[in-house]
């Protein structure tokens, strides 16, 4: 097969390990490239791109309040990316994080409605978190059950699950739980996450989750099982792992962490439940997880990066009248460039030449 007569002009070969420096050079290069393309978009609006980027940095990092707001955007992204990591490691394409977040928030709200005012703040928050874990976990478990049992397509299944739970919350919001004009009542202070350093303490929770997830994936039996199943289901069975069971367990875990994320958004940021509580975080976090190569520490960086873009674009809208959706464009470009650049890290291109032919012959 190496001897295809009409050797194409460019052949691809898997690269042996590339040096760490070169890998980072390519990744940073791709980020720069995406920002440069972003410049063109800003030019269309008739603004100076560099000035615009300056405003974005200023608006997201250039002040304590701005920084706090940026971190607030990054928290759920990070939490949710952490949740997705084990599924993707297992090659289980869970794109239902959006719904699992919503389910978690719904679970927590249920507790808050029942027990707010009857319990002191700490036990109430703990119970809410627990309910979020259970609700999110179950929402993740359902598609995993059908995947394990009948091999249903998990990508499409988890996707559909999102809209069902969002609809259910919408019904509660406009119906039984409505307080005024399609809104639910705000939680009392007891049911709200306390602030630490000016930001709700969700940031501490997700940072702890980063450590736990890193530890879980690297040092526990379950993490090991997930990694083996992701590489070869046959080998996993050979080694005595119950593939279907591990799938369900991992999806419960993933849903549970999404649930915690939902609880954090609910109780930390919003203070009330609404059907759009996840607001796309579940989808964006998938790209965060993937671009971080499922490494929890890298997720901190990537989620901050996306948060800076989002917050910066908001500032841009108020200061320069550039639509805030610019952030989504730049985030999209960033994702495209980073997804594409992995190719150049994993493969090398061999251009047709006499030398390479000889090389091949020698093999």
């Amino acid at each position: 097969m190496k001897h295809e007569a009409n050797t194409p002009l460019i052949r691809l070969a898997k690269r042996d390990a590339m040096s760490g420096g070169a890998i980072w050079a390519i990744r940073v290069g791709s980020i720069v490239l995406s920002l440069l393309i972003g410049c063109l978009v800003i030019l269309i609006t008739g603004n100076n791109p560099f000035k615009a980027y300056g405003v974005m940095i200023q608006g997201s990092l250039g002040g304590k309040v701005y920084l706090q707001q940026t971190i607030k955007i990054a928290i759920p992204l990070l939490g949710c990316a952490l949740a997705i990591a084990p599924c993707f490691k297992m090659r289980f394409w869970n794109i239902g994080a959006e719904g699992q977040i919503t389910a978690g928030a719904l679970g927590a709200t249920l507790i808050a409605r029942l027990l707010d005012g009857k319990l002191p703040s700490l036990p109430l928050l703990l119970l809410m978190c627990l309910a979020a874990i259970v609700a999110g976990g179950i929402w993740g478990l359902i598609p995993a059950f059908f995947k394990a049992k009948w091999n249903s397509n998990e990508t499409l299944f988890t996707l559909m699950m999102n809209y069902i739970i969002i609809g259910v919350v919408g019904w509660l919001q406009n119906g039984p739980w409505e307080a005024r004009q399609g809104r639910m009542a705000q939680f009392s202070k007891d049911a709200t996450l306390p602030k630490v350093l000016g930001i709700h303490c969700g940031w501490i929770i997700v940072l702890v989750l980063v450590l736990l997830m890193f530890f879980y994936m690297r040092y526990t039996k379950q993490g090991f099982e997930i990694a083996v199943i992701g590489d070869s289901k046959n080998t996993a069975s050979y080694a005595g792992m119950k593939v279907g069971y591990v799938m369900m367990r991992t999806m419960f875990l993933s849903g549970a962490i999404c649930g915690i994320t939902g609880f954090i958004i609910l109780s930390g940021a919003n203070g009330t439940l609404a059907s759009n509580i996840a607001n796309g975080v579940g989808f964006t976090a998938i790209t965060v997880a993937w671009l971080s190569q499922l490494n929890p520490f890298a997720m901190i960086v990537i989620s901050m990066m996306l948060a800076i873009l989002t917050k910066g674009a908001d500032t841009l809208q108020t200061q320069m009248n550039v639509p805030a959706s610019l952030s989504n464009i730049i985030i999209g470009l960033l994702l495209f460039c980073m997804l594409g650049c992995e190719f150049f890290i994993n493969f090398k291109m061999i251009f047709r030449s006499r030398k390479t032919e000889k090389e091949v012959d020698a093999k």
Partner: protein
Amino acid sequence: MTGFINGLILLIVAAISYGTPLMFGTLGEILTEKSGNLNLGVEGIMFMGGAFGLGGVFYYEKLVGENANGVVAILVAILAAFIAGAFASLIFSFLTTTLRANQNVTGLALSIFGTGVGQFTGELMRVKAGGYVTISNGLKVFFSNTPFPKALTDIPYVGQLLFGHSVFFYLGLLLAIGMHLYLNKTRSGMFLKAVGENPATADAAGINVARNKYAATIIGGGISAIGGMIYITSIASCVWNHEGLAGVGWLAVALVIFCLWRPLSTIWGSILFGALMIMYLRFPLPFIPTDIYKILPYVVTIAVLILTSLRNNKDKQPPASLGLPYFREER
């Protein structure tokens, strides 16, 4: 009784009007998925189609002023939306087919990018036009009214049912039938299906896998984008309305599953989903709340998904290589 029948006819007409954008979105995604590409960026593609389609008509009318011709305007809108969607899908194809990126992640990235571009374009046009983008009423009717003469639509009962829809519905019908014929009655359609089912076999039989994937995904993306344009120009009456358009793309992905990847099924499938989208307005049932109506399409889709995996009927499965990468070296 007449009241009920008239109500029913109104419901069906409205269902068709809401279903038509879905039909295009779904048909495009069916073509894409038949090649084995799972493009989850339909939501973004439809946003782009909506914004650029509207932009196309707006600037066309601005250019020619009162001489604007309805047929030309429709063609301009279709073309603008198609190009936008094709371009978005080209990015997807390049990343997944050539650069071997993961299809799920790339599709979601496209969703984010496309909604961003659509929203950005819509807003920018509004800002540039001084706060309000719309087109003249004379032109609007071409997008929302039936192309048939009054004599036909006035036929009692069936007139409205058969002839009372926008031109896009009839175009969608033709497209669905055309795609059905293409996939089932032509050689090239058969080759495309082979690529989506078993790319290694197609490759061995001398079919260019990459070219088929590119072509189907790009054309499919263009068709989906037209759906977005139809939503904005007919349902949203030519005003950029991202809230209305939000979620239509995902519904189209669901409808692909519901229709079991069959173009002809999209005709009734889209009408059904369209009905579910608006039923709460026309047929409010006291015991079914609005928001629960809205999730019905997704619930039935999951039921279909489970049933097909349960029954294991080989003819009702997703294309066998859907979402999976194919690279020749790994043969």
